[in-house]
């Protein structure tokens, strides 16, 4: 990281230090916390939010936001389960499910890029629409009764070399996305648009196309998250993913990506998702009463962001 000021490096280290602090506190308070088994369990739980947050990172880097990821997750999960239940080959169903997510994302992208609607309000509307579609499609009931395909079960519940497959998928996707952001023209354009959209247009960047791409990617990742969840649960609930968008956004921001766009990194998002996952896991391990869990989670997020801001100013 040549050429980066001390301030920038501290800024980047902030989330890692936060995560470490929480991990240290939890491992002192709960002896089970650091067991390999628990860590793997926690990682597997994090997968869903991490996938949503990865996509959200791209969206936020362009200066946008996507509130519809939770609903996309639910609709894509339900569609995939429904297709399998109606006899479509599981692998094909998964691919179509991810495609459906990408299409939903592209729909967001088109409204935002071509329709010039503020991302917040566009995806707030599609959040409602996609959730409504899910309810209509499932009639408010979990979709079950899809074939007990071994392959499909593996997606959410399998292991490879003792590591849960969702966790492996999460890391593989993480590295691909990291590469896209750091090494490709598309990734560079994502940062440029968030940094200065006007200047990006004037530099010949096809801003609309990049935005649509980013929302499609986010939709596809949300769909994948929905499919993993469906596989893990053996059913697709119409309520799946409700308010997950908030966790995903929190993960991105905790990781140090600026909501104003143009600045951030996906490694931070991974850390942010882990902070949220570790907190949830830890609060359960410690048996904190339900009423207090929300207070603790909110306070920790606030504290983490506050400390981070303090340091950087």
């Amino acid at each position: 990281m040549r050429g980066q000021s001390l301030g920038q490096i501290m800024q980047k280290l902030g989330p890692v230090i936060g995560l470490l602090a929480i991990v240290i506190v939890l491992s002192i308070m709960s002896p089970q916390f650091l067991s390999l088994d628990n860590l793997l369990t926690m990682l597997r739980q994090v997968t869903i939010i991490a996938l949503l947050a990865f996509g959200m990172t791209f969206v936020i880097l362009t200066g946008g936001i996507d509130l519809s990821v939770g609903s996309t997750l639910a609709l894509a999960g339900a569609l995939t389960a429904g297709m399998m239940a109606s006899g479509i080959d599981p692998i094909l169903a998964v691919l179509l499910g991810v495609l459906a997510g990408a299409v939903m994302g592209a729909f967001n992208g088109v409204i935002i890029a071509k329709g010039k609607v503020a991302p917040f309000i566009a995806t707030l509307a599609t959040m409602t629409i996609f959730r409504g579609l899910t309810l209509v499609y499932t009639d408010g009931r979990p979709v079950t009764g899809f074939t007990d395909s071994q392959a499909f079960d593996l997606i959410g519940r399998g292991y490879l070399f003792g590591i849960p497959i969702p966790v492996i998928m999460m890391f593989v996707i993480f590295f691909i996305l990291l590469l896209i952001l750091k090494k490709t023209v598309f990734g560079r354009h994502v940062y440029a648009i968030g940094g200065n959209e006007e200047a990006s247009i004037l530099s010949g960047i096809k801003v609309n196309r990049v935005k649509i791409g980013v929302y499609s990617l986010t939709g596809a990742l949300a769909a994948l998250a929905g499919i993993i969840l469906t596989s893990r649960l053996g059913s697709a609930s119409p309520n799946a993913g409700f308010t997950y968008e908030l966790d995903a956004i929190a993960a991105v921001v905790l990781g140090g990506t600026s909501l104003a766009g143009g600045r951030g990194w996906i490694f931070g998002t991974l850390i942010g998702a882990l902070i949220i996952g570790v907190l949830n896991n830890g609060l359960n391990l410690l048996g904190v009463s339900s009423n207090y869990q929300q207070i603790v989670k909110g306070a920790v997020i606030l504290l983490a962001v506050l400390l981070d801001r303090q340091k950087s100013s």
Partner: protein
Amino acid sequence: MSQQTLIEMKGISKSFVGNKVLNEVNFEIRASEVHALLGENGAGKSTLMKILTGIYERDEGEVFVKGDPVHFQNTKDSEEAGIAVIHQELNIIPYLTVMENMFLGREIKFGKTGFLNTKKMIQLTKEYLGQLGVEIDPLVNAGNLSVGQQQMVEIAKALSVNAEVIVMDEPTAALTDREIERLFEVIERLREQGVGIVYISHRMEEIFKICNRVSVLRDGEYIGTRVIGEVEYDELISMLVGRELGTLFPERDVDVGDVRLKVEGLTSDVFRNINFEVKQGEILGVAGLMGAGRSEIMQALFGYREIESGNIFIDGKKAKIKKPIDAIKSGIGFVTEDRKEEGLVLSMSVRENFTLPNLDDVSKQTVISSQKENEFVDDMVGRFNVKTSGREQEVKSLSGGNQQKIVIGKWLGINPKILILDEPTRGVDVGAKKEIYQIMNELTAQGVSIIMISSELPEVLGMSDRILVIHEGQIGGELNRDEADQEKIMYAATGGE
């Protein structure tokens, strides 16, 4: 001179995160003087003034107002002590009206009620604008004004404080000659009334025209103070840049080739029936008053603004330009007038800004090759003599002149046939200006056609092979290099008044 000393700053030092930008600087303002503050981009002029007005906290040193030590915490404090500022960056709030902007933070109320006395404020706004000789509706949104008009509003705002000291940080950067003349009249009047004025500008001729004394900063160091009339131009320049500079405008000696660009009947909502040609290796200067529509014509040419009719030919072939990317593909580069809003991605590095329009050339199958990219950037940094700590430095932290070099340099990656420069030296110090002129010469020597919009007539006259004058959205005249002078341009720009 024995006027009263209004403000004295002694031994001022200031660092930003370990970077010392002012080192024991002294500065003094007397009543009834216009005191120029001179320095290259990033020398610390604005920072010194921000310390004076309480926006920044000083690390060391003392400030006295009429002999009393002061320590302002914010702009309200300094305003109460009789100091008004026209900031370098426009501080207009686009969706508020002119009147609302004028009285922002100092609204006139009915007594102590917190309710606004709008009538009074409208009336005063008209008065102050009238003093500057501009007619602007106080109830129009400030965002609808041109940059120059906005600047006039800011000047009026500073006048309305009735201050004893007025700091003007590059007030003329966005103005054309007519407004500048008005401003100078006002400055002269204020000076006669006993007001002390700090005048910051990169336009040397202005310094000699209206200032009484000049203080020079270089790299945060105080170099010295001279009395205008007792100092030669060249001495001042060498105080400023630390070396001899020679003539500002390099010799132009270029073979002009065939017609490269031909514009026919270009018409939109702000301009009508624009026809002109640019040849290979030629510099076409475009002059005109503020708001004449010069920028708009170029935006349309670049596909950034809709046109109603008209055709564009490049090398004799009709070019279809609907979006900036089309223009870029046709070999046009566009250095926009506002580098911060339209030219640079401030949060990105020198490297990333340089390669933004031509990423494809440094990548293979959309994967960016770090090696190619770095080579290109290093080449550009060397060629343009960009003063930077490295290619990873954020452009936000570069000085204005160096930022401008990057905005120009980023277009060289596309190997442009035509380069449009809109106010290429606005807010750029003399040293950097000269470097930009040299770059323009090198480019035209390689056959690049340049269209240069400029509101600085010496620059238009010094650099152009041909001059196009725009008047209220139409072509007001075309002048050759040999026949052109300031009067003729102004004559054409004002529609022959």
